[in-house]
């Protein structure tokens, strides 16, 4: 039995008695064990998952199982799951156990999903290669010498290697889409505020989105339908009604699509990625759609603006880790101040410390206007220009990344080279719009290529339907 099948197929088998949730969980557990060297999971809840599966099996027999009965899900190590460890890939949260379920986790459990474990990620979701985790690097299942992308690297690899059907990750600047492109999975970042952030460890609150990684568009739609929507624990979450994302219509409309001109012309993009993008553009044209080359007017500014704003927000969000109420405390402290400093210096990794320092700089009194306010103004310009584009085009298309998965260690010494991995993904987070990465061929070396589809605010249903259609063209 293949875990790689879509959930609806598996669900049919489960409800007709051909397959049990328990056996599905057992095969996921065996895939996890087989792929332990990839380091995708930080903790596996084997005994608990099997018990939970047995319960779901008896609910199915009794006819009162939820929508996600049989859905085996992994959680990125940034989501609160009551009674379970939670560390955001950091030493500073050593021994921390969640005291409550975040909204997303609660909604999954209420519909009888089985949570199989928590997944490795870059520390506090800061990174593009999953090389910044206190639990060690994650490896790409396609080639273990390559990175899986980040920060939800463990989550993408877990789906890639059939260790679970769905992973719940987080996407602040591409952390669900970029690893999906690198691993050949599908990764959706919904509109900012579509999903509650209650129980999601904060990195940059005005950017953070819960994202969904899967193999199959319908599976992602179903999970989105379950977890999205208003929540009395998050006053920023959208009050808009949740659409029936699990009931996707077949796409048969002819639409106007803008594709990023640079993405098919620039030498900075891997030739195979340019070729696969052009091939898709041609295919869509031959299907009767209108495709036009567009410029994103602020593309040269999205990364610096993103890093100013996110480091500022991170420096503030991460001030709570002080060694008092939870997590790691340095044994080397002599007084209160040295307790704070030593705890934080020993508990945080290098990249996190760098971003806290940068954020502190851009928020400091003398530089606040020059950096932080300036970046907020540019964010406004980016949002306005995106809204305008969305009036002209149903979708914007571009590769998810300029390169395929690179070798471990290849970019760790140059921070700017690493940041460039997110050049195409941060735009959606700055503008708040939904975006998805879906597989679009492979490079000569066998590594997967992703194509990104973006749409207007709350265009999730449209994006899912159109992505399903694109995948059916291949």
């Amino acid at each position, binding site marked *: 039995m293949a875990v790689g099948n879509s959930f609806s197929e598996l669900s049919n088998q489960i409800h007709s008695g051909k397959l049990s949730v328990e056996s599905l969980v057992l095969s996921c557990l065996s895939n996890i064990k087989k792929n332990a060297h990839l380091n995708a999971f930080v903790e596996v809840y084997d005994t608990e998952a099997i018990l939970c599966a047995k319960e779901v099996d008896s609910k199915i027999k009794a006819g009162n199982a939820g929508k996600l009965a049989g859905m085996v899900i992994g959680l990125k190590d940034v989501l609160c799951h009551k009674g379970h460890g939670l560390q955001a890939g950091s030493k500073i949260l050593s*021994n*921390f*156990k969640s*005291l*409550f379920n975040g909204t997303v986790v609660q909604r999954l459990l209420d519909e009888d999903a089985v949570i199989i474990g928590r997944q490795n990620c870059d520390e506090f979701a800061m990174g593009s290669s999953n090389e910044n985790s206190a639990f060690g690097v994650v490896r790409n299942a396609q080639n273990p010498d390559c990175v899986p992308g980040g920060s939800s690297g463990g989550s993408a690899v877990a789906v890639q290697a059939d260790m679970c059907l769905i992973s719940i990750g987080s996407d602040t600047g591409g952390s669900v889409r970029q690893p999906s492109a690198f691993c050949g999975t599908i990764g959706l970042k919904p509109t*900012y*505020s579509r999903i509650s952030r209650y129980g999601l460890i904060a990195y940059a609150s*005005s950017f953070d989105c819960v994202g969904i990684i899967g193999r199959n568009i319908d599976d992602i739609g179903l999970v989105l339908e379950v977890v999205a929507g*208003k929540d009395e624990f998050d*006053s*920023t*979450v*959208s*009050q808009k009604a949740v659409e029936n994302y699990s009931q996707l219509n077949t796409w048969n409309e002819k639409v106007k699509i803008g594709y990023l001109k640079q993405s098919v012309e620039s030498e900075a993009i891997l030739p195979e990625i340019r070729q696969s993008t052009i091939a898709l553009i041609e295919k869509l044209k031959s299907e009767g759609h209108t495709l036009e080359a567009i410029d994103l007017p*602020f593309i*040269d*500014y999205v990364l*610096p*603006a993103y890093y*100013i704003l996110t480091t500022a927000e991170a420096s503030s969000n991460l001030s709570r880790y*002080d060694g*008092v*109420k*939870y*997590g*790691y*405390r340095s044994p080397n*402290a002599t*007084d*209160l*101040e*040295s*307790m*704070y*400093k030593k705890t*934080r*210096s020993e508990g*945080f990794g290098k990249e996190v*410390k*760098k971003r*806290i*320092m*940068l954020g*502190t*700089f851009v928020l*400091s009194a003398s530089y606040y206007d020059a*950096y932080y*306010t*300036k*970046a*907020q*103004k*540019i*964010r*406004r*310009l980016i*949002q306005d220009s995106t809204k305008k584009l969305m009036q002209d085009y149903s979708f914007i298309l571009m590769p998810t990344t300029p390169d395929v998965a690179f070798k471990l260690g290849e970019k760790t010494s140059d*921070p*700017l080279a690493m940041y460039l991995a997110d050049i195409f993904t941060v735009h959606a987070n700055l503008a*708040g719009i939904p975006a998805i990465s879906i597989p679009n061929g492979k490079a000569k070396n066998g590594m997967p290529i992703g194509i990104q589809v973006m749409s207007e605010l709350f265009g999730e249903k449209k994006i899912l339907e159109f992505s399903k259609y694109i995948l059916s063209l291949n």
Partner: protein
Amino acid sequence: MKIDTQIVNKLAHLSRLEFNDAEKVEMANNLEKILDWMDKLNEVNTDGVEPLRHISAEINVFREDVAINRLSQAEALSNAPEHDSDYFRVPKVID
């Protein structure tokens, strides 16, 4: 702009972090490189542009303010590195 170890020291204190001498030099280099790159934003004219501070369209979403005891004191203390029966414990503050 030039980032020297004096600026690194100041930022480190504000961030409640500390670094050894070699780390300070590396941090100064990294910060300088990244900040120079961020200066690119000055190419864009933003006169008269209102800074974008909130990305969610929701305004004043309220719920009933009902007091509920979600965590017991024991639970709230359970993750603390040091605590006694009632309080979190930290190094002595006043002599």
